[in-house]
């Protein structure tokens, strides 16, 4: 999950190879899940916080990366508490939050083009079964790029709904959002073709 946008820097975390960081994330997330417990979450949180500090980011940046999860967490906490007790709730939700924070640190310290190169290299063997690594890398880039575009479209649709006095109408929000998102996708397709990116 790539949530943040690259922020240039010269720290060791910034300078580490994208492949090493992705491998580190894989190992870290696997350990978090394999040894899921409140203690593991605490150790993981200390480690991730330390890396944020090492990369030159403060607590505010860390919290900002996981803030979008707040509604999801609020929804999950009572359910997990009820089914698995407080320790289970802390373990499951804490694992999710710490893993997302770790993933966000990678996108904060790594250029997307470097990540795409790694993805394309990793997928190179899959070319034998018809997978085009560059096309998969392009798909990832477009997905990352779509996040702020759709967020801005949603905000505009919300404003337009309010301006028309239809604050509680789901249709007045969803219809323009879907139509504009599809139109945007269409235009991006044209732009990619025009730039010769998929030739």
């Amino acid at each position, binding site marked *: 999950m790539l949530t943040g946008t690259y922020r240039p820097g010269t720290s060791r975390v910034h300078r580490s190879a994208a492949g090493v960081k992705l491998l580190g994330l894989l190992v870290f997330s696997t350990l978090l899940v394999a040894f899921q417990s409140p203690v593991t979450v605490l150790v993981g949180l200390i480690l991730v916080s330390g890396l944020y500090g090492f990369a030159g980011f403060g607590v505010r940046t860390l919290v900002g990366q996981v803030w979008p999860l707040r509604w999801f967490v609020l929804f999950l906490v009572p359910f997990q508490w009820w089914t698995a007790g407080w320790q289970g709730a802390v373990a499951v939700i804490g694992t999710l939050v710490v893993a997302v924070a770790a993933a966000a640190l990678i996108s904060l310290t790594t250029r997307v083009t470097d990540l795409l190169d790694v993805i394309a290299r990793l997928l190179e063997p899959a070319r034998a079964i018809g997978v085009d690594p560059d096309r998969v890398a392009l798909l990832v880039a477009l997905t990352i790029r779509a996040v702020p575009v759709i967020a801005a479209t949603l905000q505009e649709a919300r404003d337009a709904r309010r301006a028309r006095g239809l604050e509680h109408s789901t249709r007045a929000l969803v219809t323009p959002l879907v139509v504009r998102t599809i139109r945007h996708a269409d235009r991006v397709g044209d732009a*990619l073709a*025009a730039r010769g990116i998929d030739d």
Partner: protein
Amino acid sequence: MIQIEGVSHRYGDREVLSGIDLSLVESRIGVIGANGSGKSTLARLLNGLVVPSTGRVLVDGMDTARDGAGVRRKVAFVFSDPDAQIVMPTVAEDVAFSLRRRGLSKKEVADRVGDILGRYGLGGHADHPAHLLSSGQKQLLALASVLVTEPEVLVCDEPTTLLDLRNSRHVAGLLEGLAQRVVLITHDLDLLHGWQRVLVIDEGRVVADGPAEQSIDHYEGLMGAERSC
């Protein structure tokens, strides 16, 4: 040279271009016409984004229907909405993205990206999120992202439509100064002042073709006549 030979184009039952024959050799060519007249379709024919229903479009002898990839290396395209054209999260990455698969080293890519961002006044924004740029800066980025590939022809489909007067004039000034041949589709008649050749499109046909002042007079007459009907 771009050669358009006997081109017609339909979207379903609707014919949007009809019987177009043109040789485009001038370094500055404008295209004007009312909304829905077919000028954007004409622009899209030039780099193979649209393939004609009948007839053919040749770019230095290459048929856009058969060698679209080759044509697009020569003919770049800029849209009116830069948001749709920007693919990567940061400014420098978006420009660099155009150079993927070109066999350049990382240093060559970085040098070319740095050079073009500097020329377009975006040097200080290289690592900024592209979606946070102003509209004018986004259009400059869209231009930089296609010009970094050093095309021979630049087709711009209403590139100043979403810009304020200052940014519109800035982009117009940049287009004026380009070494490339430019085909500009626009509603802003002031941008075409002094241009060598301007085509007027009306209901899918070229109804005027000449120096800017002559074609603009014809277009204004056409619009005036429609208003008085």
